[in-house]
């Protein structure tokens, strides 16, 4: 009878509503319990297709009115939905079971070698399930982990948004965590992966979790598990689409010197004769419009009044207004994805497609198409075959250059009162490289137009790259006897990136190169060593990687014993070929270039033919090969679901260049143990259903294949003077070169309290990294000049580092029921300091800095903010004062080169030591609102101070200090900005810029994002074609709630523009 109702009435209701006249509702009641028979409160009881909802009381009982044809639905988070048809029943006894699907999501973690049940795991894992992963929107796979995991994203200039797991483990080695997609490390560009293909992400944090990845696990491991079809699952189609719009970037965010102030400085410099050299220069170096007016006035070409009024007008202009109006636009990102999956007894299938289309704020574009298929075949009873293919095609097109790169050939920045466009928005030329008079006379002599219009020039440049990445993944699993499985995997990855950078014939770049090499013959005619036309740069990068893994897995249990073990062998090679080339005189229509004379040194016209240069030859070939061999084993034993022990060992070998054979390989291992106290028979705390203690110890490593134990050279092409092939030394010999090692000890606690109302984990760890690769500053007299950094240093295993930290993850279900409120709190404390570093002298100079780069000083954080001690301004002159031998001094040379390491001011780390987030999610009926507040504490940054030498020499206006400078005695009471002096003293500037007075605290709390979603399923809304649909709004970068610094700067973006606010609208569903 009940079956009849389900088969008949449910579809009937769906199609026609109540067609049976008007039966009378009757009162029904019941009790809802869990599988142990305990009453469940706050269970939502709803009649399918109607709005009526009641909740169970604390005794698990409910009562409502219903028709015999009604179907009751029972919902509670974490439990599977239960259904009952009313029929003739008036009392219901409902048992709700855990939601297997949901349970699986949280209780199984993948290491890339195996999936582990979390309850027996001894290591520290963090898992981001599908719904949390899809909480945010973005083109790439990693940024979605920001704020919802313990990973810290280092966004500071030069750090390229590197994900940092548990603080830094390396100083100068590769600091990025290993990223594993399904089973193998991903060698291509991780941005190729479509986030919509991701099912879940597991972060392996301690040695027990990560040691299986051996020498690549030193920075932690992020395992991305992609979506798969399921056996015996019906066809399921899901899709999603979203669009994200960003505000225009705020060009006024960074404080800058005003145009009026800059004009004053130019007038002063002009009076000092500063520009005479430029005027007389054979290089015809540009002079700003104000200086040109001052020259014209001096030479009597304009009247003082006319010059004065024009200069006054220029002083009112601000190039940032043009940048805001014309240069930057709104970034718009679109994302579409479709996913079809299912499976039968004999096979599973998945097919997905994704398409992304982004428009950047600089009018560039990115498009990506992902196609993926993943199939499993259960051919024999014992044999499973998996075949997956992943195809990514992307196209990246560059737009305008960053406005900060508007810099002349001799390194001077664009003057702050430049006009980029006229009133009608038409691009105007600017005096960046050459004087206007020189441009005019050259053009009259038959040269190409030499003027530069930054606003429109990018349209003459075609800069794009196409990438095709193919990934083939195969696996065969054969069950030899129950519990024992042999597994063989092979992955082939082939990626090709073709880059094109065509400076069109009308681009400034091409015109400039052609003009520079143009020769004026004795009879006044011109000859052009660089032919007319475009300049075409091409690059081609090909990556080919093979990975093979053979592995034996055992999973078995007898009695109260449970054992899982694996052992295997892995081979991986990665070959990367780079080719780059250039053609001159390029004609885009016929796709042809012209030959040029690369050998002759031509006198350059822009240097008055006083300086010779060869036409740049830019053909380059390089092939890199990495080979890795690894042997690994891992075993975990659990007794009676109470005690677990695990151990892993791995040996890695790599083709580290020239290293003694025994150092090519390094064995790494880990041990772990766990005790699930709540499963003990004596444990009877009903309010504490789960209590588990974990401990682990072990090693992981890091390898740098670019290093060599022998002295190596690189060939640098043709020497410009000797015209012979020349070579330079890369590194001095280093026979003791080895791999970096990190030891992690982890203590963890997992718990659940008060019927799941509060759950979470606490981990405490210590890290010790040894044999770290570092740059040792060496005495200049050794002559060991690093060709990459142009500093006297050598790179070797010179450092050690120690760290410890605490990770607290809490989840609270504050309110359950019709109004649902959940809170997730992440708290991280991570501190690390250098404990050993090769230090050649006690001079503080090499270590002073803003902490953007590693400044490895023993006892200090790796990214340390170290400055000179500040003794205030001299009340008479406004000179900055520091200390020499404890005495207040203005001998800047003595301060800079004489201050000892111990006399520097150490403020602290430049990277947050305490960070985390608070995520609150509220839901009421179909609507949910989630807000992510993130916080960072315990770090510092160095404010950008004025450097008069850079202001004079390179128009550096990127400091807001000038207006606050010391001008008269007494000013030192309220300012710390030194007085302007001429000539500038670069050491005085350097001392001030790197003194403790400019250190600011970074601590801040920000509203990172807000998400508003409306969820509905077929039950809630009639006549909906989807099984489930969600429409959402998602806003990011909403701003700071609190910050410690009194400056206007956002501590996370002290030197760059801050990311604009974005708003996304999206919908997803399945049917």
């Amino acid at each position, binding site marked *: 009878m009940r079956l009849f109702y389900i088969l008949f009435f449910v579809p009937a209701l769906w199609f026609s509503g109540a067609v049976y006249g008007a039966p009378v509702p009757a009162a029904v009641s019941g009790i809802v319990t869990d599988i142990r028979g305990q009453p469940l409160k706050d269970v939502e009881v709803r009649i399918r297709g109607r709005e009526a909802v009641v909740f169970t009381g604390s005794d698990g009982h409910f009562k409502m009115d219903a028709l015999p044809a009604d179907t009751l639905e029972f919902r509670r988070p974490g439990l599977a939905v239960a259904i009952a048809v009313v029929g003739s029943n008036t009392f219901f006894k409902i048992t709700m079971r855990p939601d297997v699907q949901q349970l699986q999501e949280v209780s199984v973690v993948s290491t890339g070698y195996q999936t582990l049940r979390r309850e027996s795991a001894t290591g520290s894992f963090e898992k981001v399930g599908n719904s949390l992963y899809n909480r945010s929107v973005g083109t790439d796979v990693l940024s979605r982990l920001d704020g919802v995991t313990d990973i810290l994203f280092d966004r500071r200039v030069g750090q390229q948004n590197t994900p940092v797991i548990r603080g830094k483990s390396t100083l100068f080695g590769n600091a990025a965590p290993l990223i594993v997609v399904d089973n193998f490390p991903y060698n291509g560009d991780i941005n190729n992966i479509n986030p919509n293909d991701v099912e879940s992400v597991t972060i392996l944090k301690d040695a027990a979790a990560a040691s299986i990845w051996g020498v690549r696990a030193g920075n932690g491991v992020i395992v991305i598990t992609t979506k798969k079809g399921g056996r015996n699952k019906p066809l399921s189609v899901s899709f999603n689409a979203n669009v994200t719009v960003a505000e225009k970037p705020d060009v006024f965010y960074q404080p800058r010197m005003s145009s009026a102030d800059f004009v004053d400085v130019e007038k002063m410099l002009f009076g000092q004769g500063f520009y005479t050299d430029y005027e007389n220069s054979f290089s015809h170096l540009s002079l700003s419009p104000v200086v040109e007016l001052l020259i014209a006035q001096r030479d009597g070409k304009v009247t003082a009044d006319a010059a004065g009024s024009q200069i006054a007008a220029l002083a009112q202009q601000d190039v940032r207004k043009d940048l805001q109006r014309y240069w930057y636009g709104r970034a718009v990102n679109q994302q579409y994805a479709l996913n079809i999956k299912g499976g039968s007894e004999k096979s599973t299938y998945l097919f997905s497609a994704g398409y992304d289309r982004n428009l950047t704020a600089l009018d560039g574009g990115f498009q990506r198409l992902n196609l993926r298929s993943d199939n499993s075949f259960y051919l024999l009873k014992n044999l499973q075959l998996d075949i997956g293919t992943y195809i990514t095609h992307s196209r990246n097109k560059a737009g305008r250059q960053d406005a900060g790169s508007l810099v002349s050939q001799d390194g001077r920045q664009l003057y702050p009162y430049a006009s980029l466009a006229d009133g009608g928005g038409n691009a105007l030329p600017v005096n960046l490289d050459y004087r206007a008079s020189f441009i005019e006379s050259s053009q009259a002599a038959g040269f190409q137009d030499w003027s530069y219009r930054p606003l429109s020039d990018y349209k003459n440049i075609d800069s794009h790259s196409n990438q095709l990445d193919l990934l083939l993944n195969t696996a065969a699993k054969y069950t030899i006897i129950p519990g024992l499985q042999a597994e063989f995997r092979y992955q082939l990855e082939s990626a090709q990136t073709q880059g094109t950078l065509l400076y069109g014939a009308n681009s400034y770049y091409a015109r400039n190169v052609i003009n520079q090499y143009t020769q004026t013959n004795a009879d006044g005619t011109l000859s052009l060593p660089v032919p007319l036309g475009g300049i075409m740069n091409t690059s081609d990068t090909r990556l080919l990687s093979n990975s093979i893994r053979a592995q034996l897995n055992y999973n078995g249990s007898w009695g109260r014993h449970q054992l899982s073990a694996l052992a295997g062998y892995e081979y991986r090679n990665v070959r990367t070929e780079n080719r780059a080339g250039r053609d001159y005189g390029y004609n885009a229509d016929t796709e042809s270039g012209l030959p040029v004379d690369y050998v002759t040194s031509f*006198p350059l016209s822009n240097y008055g033919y006083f300086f010779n240069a060869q036409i740049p030859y830019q053909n380059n070939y390089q092939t890199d*090969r990495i080979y890795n061999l690894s042997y690994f084993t891992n075993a975990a034993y659990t007794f009676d679901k109470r005690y677990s022990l695990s151990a892993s060992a791995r040996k890695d070998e790599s083709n580290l260049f020239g290293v003694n054979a025994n150092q090519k390989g390094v064995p790494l291992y880990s041990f772990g143990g766990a005790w699930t106290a709540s499963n003990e028979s004596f444990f009877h705390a009903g309010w504490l259903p789960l209590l588990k203690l974990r401990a682990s110890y072990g090693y992981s490593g890091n390898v740098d294949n670019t290093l060599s134990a022998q002295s190596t*050279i690189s060939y640098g092409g043709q020497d410009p003077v000797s015209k*012979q092939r020349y070579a330079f030394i890369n590194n*001095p010999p280093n026979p003791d070169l080895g791999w970096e090692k990190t030891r992690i000890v982890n203590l963890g606690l997992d718990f659940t309290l008060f019927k799941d109302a509060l759950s979470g984990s606490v981990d405490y760890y210590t890290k010790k990294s040894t044999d770290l690769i570092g740059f040792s500053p*060496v005495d200049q*007299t050794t002559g060991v000049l690093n060709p990459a950094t142009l500093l006297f240093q050598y790179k070797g295993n010179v450092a050690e580092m120690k760290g410890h930290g605490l990770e607290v993850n809490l989840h609270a279900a504050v309110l359950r029921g019709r109004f649902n409120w959940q809170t997730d709190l992440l708290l991280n404390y991570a501190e690390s300091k250098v404990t050993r570093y090769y230090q050649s002298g006690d*001079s503080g100079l090499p270590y002073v800095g803003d902490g953007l780069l590693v400044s490895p000083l023993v006892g200090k954080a790796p990214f340390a903010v170290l400055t000179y001690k500040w003794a205030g301004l001299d009340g008479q002159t406004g000179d900055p004062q520091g200390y020499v031998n404890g005495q207040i001094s203005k001998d800047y040379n003595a301060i800079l*080169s004489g201050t000892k390491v111990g006399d520097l001011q150490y403020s602290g780390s430049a990277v947050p030591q305490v960070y985390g987030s608070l995520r609150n999610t509220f839901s009421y009926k179909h609507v949910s609102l989630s807000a992510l507040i993130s916080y960072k504490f315990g770090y510092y940054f160095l404010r950008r101070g004025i450097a008069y030498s850079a202001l004079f020499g390179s128009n550096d206006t990127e400091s807001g200090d000038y207006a606050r400078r010391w001008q008269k005695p007494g000013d030192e009471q309220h300012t710390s900005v030194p007085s302007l002096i001429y000539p500038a003293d670069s*050491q005085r500037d350097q001392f001030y810029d790197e003194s403790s007075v400019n250190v600011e605290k970074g601590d801040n709390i920000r509203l990172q994002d807000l998400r508003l979603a409306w969820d509905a399923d077929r039950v809630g809304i009639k006549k909906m074609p989807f099984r489930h649909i969600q429409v959402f709004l998602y806003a990011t970068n909403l701003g700071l709630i609190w910050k410690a610094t009194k400056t206007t700067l956002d501590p996370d973006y002290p030197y760059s523009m801050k990311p604009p606010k974005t708003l996304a609208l999206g919908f997803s569903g399945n049917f």
Partner: protein
Amino acid sequence: MKAKSLLHIYTCDIRRLLIMTGLVLFFAGCKRELDIKPSSSLQVPSSVADFQAMMDNTGKFNVLGPFAGTLAADDGFVTDATWNAAHLTARNAYIWDRNLFNDNVLNDWSYAYAGIFTANVVLEGITKYGTNGADWASIKGQAMFFRGYDYLQLAQEFCKAYDEQTAGSDAGLVLRASSDLNIKSVRSTVSQTYQQIISDLNTAVNLLPVNVITKTRPGKAAAYAALSRTYLAMRAYDKAGLYADSCLQLGASLLDYNQVAGIAAISFQRFNNEVIIHTTMTPDAILTGTRYLVDTSFYASYAPEDLRRILFFVPLRGSTYLNFRGSYDGTTSRLFYGPTTAEMYLVRAECNVRAGRINQALDDLNALRQKRYKTVSYQPLASADAGVVLGWVLTERRKEMVFRGQRWSDLRRLNKEPSLAKTLVKIVNGKRYELPPGDPRYVLPIPQAVINDTGIPQN
């Protein structure tokens, strides 16, 4: 039946054997791959070509010679505006301030030692891989030459002027005989420093070929010329003259300035016939283009019929001062300081006149002057007074070798002779600076970072 199962076992074994063999071969292959170099751009130098390529790196040996001595000397001058805009080391070198080389780790000291390091790596490589062939000998000669040549340049800035009486105790250079960076830097004595220079250059003389394919590489003549310069700096005039003579025996051609057009922005070609080895100074902004000037009084010391007047100098736009355009680098951005045949004529002449061989001195002097003056108005000099002829030779040296990086060394040695000593005077921003003969500031300070790192005594 039995046979079949035997066959079955047999085929199984064959299969297993094949699989096992395959696996072993595969593993063995993988093992071998661990010896493949990780990047095509890396090379362990081992062949003649590798070491020659290292020696042909002009950025290490030829084009970043010391420049502070030239700024400190009296070849040219800079305007206040140029001085004010210059960087710290350039400014301070000009006025003999002690704060030098501290604003940049790439400086006169470190560039020279970077060259010495490369030379040492090459010398060690030759010991390891070299054979007795002439090509290996040449490379060893080149490395020895540049090590000696770099020490010679360094000694002119960082050591006291050579004095036979005190050379055994005066602080010399750090002599680095190995590329091993763990060997601590210590200062030798001036005597040891010059012995090292002479020893390196003598070894080079024996190993270097007479002819070179590019003038950035030293030949035998370059080693003789460097030895001649070394003995000149030591005021060992007999030997300086002998080595200048040995050098000229291998080639004594001079450019006839009457044949040089003198209309281009730059008067001379790089690698011209007078160049013995091509070396240029670090192209510091203050020494380039329009900044480093010659005043009218020095300009006036060139006779009107002296072709160097127009080939060396060009009037600065809008000024009475003059720019130098006579660098044998063939550019205005880099000052040439390598030895030339003309310099060797002058050294031989100076040494001959100092030894009383007046006529031989006049022969060399006139041979050079003939190529420098307009042919129509050329008059040979004649005198029997050694003092007069020495004066002529030194004046000719000053005029011929202006902006050639040798003036600082000349001042240091000539100041030892009271009759030739000179007090330098410079005025910057209205302030007068003086450098009397024998002043301690004739020895430039070693970069402070080096002192901090090594603890060696500062000058």
